[in-house]
């Protein structure tokens, strides 16, 4: 399988110039980053190659390569798409990373895009949100545009490897009442990416983009893009059987429906935006465990669903430092209101805040970024700083240091005792 990918990539690059393109550009990029701290470090490496080309109204990009993430080699086609552009819109099909929203890492495109905060922190903000292959139809008329998307695959649930320092151990019990031994071994289960056509995720968005600002309304129906990994406890643990695990995490692919409204308005020297989103039937953990039927002695964590309202308000401001460069500031406040379940009617309410300041040298020679976030209650959060030096055209060296605080049983506080830094270099040609 791996060899087939390599042969395909080499063929793409070699055959690229002969495909009759009006414009043809080979693309090469690479990057190496090391993450270290008071726990075993990890090495990430990526080498991508490919090309983009244009034939009249048709354009395409094919980029793929090898990557090493936490010691595991993978081969991926990261960009493999064809796009037909016309006066009234376009049709794009294939695989490509989704863009991010104005707040640098919070996407304003709910639906297919997945990604986790820990992945963002672990890669010092360089992680690209994964996206499944899809077909996108866009119709444009004046200031109005409509986008429809459909994918034969599900969005990939995002969960760090169990050996990663970013694995959320605070959510994993270390013992279970009634068991005589502590839980030790954990494994995650991969699920196939294909889903039946009746479960294909679909997304639709109508956007009005005017000079005074832009407003959009949209909807999504498909597998929830928020990763949900309920626990399965293997009850009859036998320490002599190496392949038996105490705990198994299997992503639950639950269909949800969501609708949203976004608004972005430039005001004086800044920009303000908001996004309001309603999600129906989002799965979540409920109290207790259920015996797994079928003979295996195991317990499944009980789950339920609830409706959720997410609100987000943000603003950005950019300040010139003359020949020293540019300083950008942005902030976002968000609320997450769980509307309750049939068993528990009382809604849960949580709020959060993220913000950042970045400085970029006027010639793009380097930049400094500081990002921070906290859920407000309980007091916990993260702060992350990255320095980037573009020592040559297309060559970058960066250092990133995340800092966490809070109680050990909180989402971010669980990483507070870790001293982590990440150093990386990228190369583009």
């Amino acid at each position: 399988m791996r060899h087939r990918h390599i042969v395909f990539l080499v063929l793409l690059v070699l055959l690229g110039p002969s495909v009759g393109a009006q414009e043809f550009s080979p693309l090469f990029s690479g990057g190496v980053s090391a993450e270290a701290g008071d726990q075993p470090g990890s090495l990430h490496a990526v080498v991508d190659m490919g090309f983009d080309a244009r034939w009249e109204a048709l354009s395409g990009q094919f980029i793929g390569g090898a990557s090493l993430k936490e010691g595991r080699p993978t081969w991926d086609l990261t960009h493999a798409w064809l796009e037909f552009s016309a006066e009234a819109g376009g049709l794009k099909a294939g695989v490509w990373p989704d863009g991010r929203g104005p707040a640098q890492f919070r996407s304003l495109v709910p639906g297919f895009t997945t990604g986790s905060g820990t992945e963002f922190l672990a890669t010092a903000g360089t992680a690209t949100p994964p996206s499944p292959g899809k077909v996108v139809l866009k119709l444009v008329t004046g200031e109005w545009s409509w986008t429809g998307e459909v994918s034969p695959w599900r969005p990939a649930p995002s969960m760090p490897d169990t050996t990663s320092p970013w694995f959320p151990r605070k959510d994993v019990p270390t013992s279970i009442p009634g068991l005589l031994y502590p839980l030790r071994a954990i494994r995650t289960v991969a699920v196939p990416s294909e889903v039946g056509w009746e479960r294909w995720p679909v997304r639709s968005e109508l956007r009005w983009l005017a000079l005074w600002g832009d407003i959009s309304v949209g909807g999504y129906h498909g597998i929830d893009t928020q990763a949900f990994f309920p626990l399965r406890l293997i009850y009859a643990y036998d320490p002599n059987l190496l392949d038996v695990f105490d705990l198994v995490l299997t992503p639950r692919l639950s269909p949800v429906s969501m609708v949203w409204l976004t608004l972005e308005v430039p005001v004086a020297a800044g920009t303000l935006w908001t996004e309001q989103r309603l999600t129906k039937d989002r799965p979540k953990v409920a109290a207790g465990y259920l015996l797994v039927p079928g003979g295996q002695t195991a317990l499944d964590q009980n789950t339920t669903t609830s409706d959720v309202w997410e609100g987000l308000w943000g603003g950005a401001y950019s300040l010139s430092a003359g020949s020293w460069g540019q300083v950008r500031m942005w902030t976002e406040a968000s609320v997450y209101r769980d509307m309750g379940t049939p068993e528990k009617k009382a809604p849960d309410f949580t709020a959060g805040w993220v913000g950042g300041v970045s400085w970029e040298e006027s010639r793009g020679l380097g930049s400094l970024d500081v990002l921070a976030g906290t859920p407000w209650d309980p007091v916990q959060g993260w702060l992350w700083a990255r320095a980037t030096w573009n020592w040559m055209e297309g060559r970058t060296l960066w250092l990133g240091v995340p800092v966490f605080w809070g109680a050990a049983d909180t989402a971010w506080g669980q990483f507070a005792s870790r001293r982590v830094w990440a150093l990386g270099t990228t190369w583009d040609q």
Partner: protein
Amino acid sequence: MKWRLLLDFCLLGLAGIAVPLAAQTPQNEAAMAELFSSEPQFSLKCRLTIEDQTGDTKTRDLSITALRTAGDKKFLAQVTAPSFLKNLKFLRLETKDGTGTWLKTARGTQRLAPQADPESLFGSDFTTGDFQPGSNDWVVGVSDSLTIVLERPTEPRFGWSRQILTLRKADHLILRSDFLSQDGTLVRRYEVKAFSEAGVPSHVELADLKNRRRSTLVVVAFDSAKPISGSLFLPGSL
């Protein structure tokens, strides 16, 4: 083919609305200033060379497209080489309803607020502020039969407090724009360095004299005849 200069790129708000010369004031002289062609539409390809204090240079190939209809101005600049910078774009729309500016960088696409501070364009000395609408406080300087000279005070926190603009009288082409500090020192200069055989600029330079660096644009192709679709200028397509 008659085409006037390049550089819708910098320096002033370009109202581009014909006003009888006799009725012109310094304000609308400045507003009519042209950096690129005043043709209703054009596309050009040029090479941007960015030189720093040490003499090291970086180059970007640019594709620039402009379209004017009644009361509207649309301008799009995008990097076409090197390949890994291909997604960098600058879009400006100016209509009777208002003005919108978008900048697409490696960090994503952002809408620039109308009063936002200027940002560097593609890592060069040109900035987004060079496209902002001109103020109304121009006064006539020492002009002659061939040129018009206009002066105005500017926001001092960007490093200069006065701008002196030299236009070609015949077509309001910007020949030079000087930025002076509070003590009168020339700190930034935009200048046409060469003209094509048709008498239009083919080589322009923006020098940051204070920091001893400069950016030059050399036009390699110009076309004002090929039809340009308005769909090129849709912010949603960036």
